[in-house]
């Protein structure tokens, strides 16, 4: 059921003509993925999925769409001219990965044991403390970069 939600919404994202509908389908896809994380016994990942993807990234993308779209967002020709190549390559990737998944013997994969939130937090702040700090530095750099890119050019400021 959740898989149908994920894949169906994913197909809708790349096929719908109106990009706002695509963004809403993306939110449905990410919400279904959060449900799958709960089923996989990783509630902290599901919570982060809802907070970051459903909350932050979706709103950011919807803002960007509404900032850039003038009038009707439905486009007559949404596809690039390399559409046939894209279909072939995507089906090729899918076939390769599915073939590898089926061929491999995943031994002892029977039950899902939920990873506790406290265990993940302990791992995050002991074993993975250095990547955690690097991530915070990366986020700081991304904030500064986004502010720099989104700033209006100098002559606009003088004109205002």
């Amino acid at each position, binding site marked *: 059921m959740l*898989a149908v939600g994920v*894949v169906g919404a*994913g*197909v809708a*994202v*790349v096929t719908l003509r109106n*990009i706002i509908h695509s963004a809403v389908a993306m939110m449905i*896809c*990410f919400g279904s*993925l959060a449900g799958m*994380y709960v*089923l*996989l*016994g*990783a509630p902290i*990942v599901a919570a*982060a*999925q809802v907070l*970051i993807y459903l909350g*932050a*990234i979706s709103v*950011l*993308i919807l803002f*960007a*769409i509404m*900032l*850039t*779209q003038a009038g009707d967002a439905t*486009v007559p020709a*949404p*596809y*690039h001219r*390399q*559409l046939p*190549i*894209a*279909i072939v*390559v*995507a089906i090729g*990737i*899918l076939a390769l*990965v599915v073939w590898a*998944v089926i061929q491999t013997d*995943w031994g*002892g*994969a*029977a039950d*899902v044991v939920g*990873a506790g939130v406290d265990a*993940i937090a302990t*791992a*995050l702040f002991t074993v993975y403390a250095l*990547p955690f700090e690097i991530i915070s530095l*990366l*986020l700081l750099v*991304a904030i500064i*970069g*986004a502010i720099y*890119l*989104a700033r209006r050019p100098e002559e606009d400021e003088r004109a205002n």
Partner: protein
Amino acid sequence: MPSLEGYLVVSALLFSIGAFGFMARRNAILLLISIELMFNAVNLSLVAFNAYLAPADNAGAVFALMIMAVAAAEVTVGLALVIAIIRTRQTPEVDQYADLRE
């Protein structure tokens, strides 16, 4: 009862959908959305591997959280770039960005 193979096949489907969208669509913002789909496909496979194959350590979940943070940084900078490009070019369609070719 869902199995590891089921999750991995869903992940592969989502990844190829994202790859298809990235190659076939013309809108620059939709290319970023497609990249997010591929990030999520990888996250799903990592969490599934963690849950089924190595439930003792939480490397998969931690890695998925790290990927989410990197994806957030990526989409922030990417959207700022896309908005700046759309503001100068007046179009979101990537096949009209041909300045380097001329």
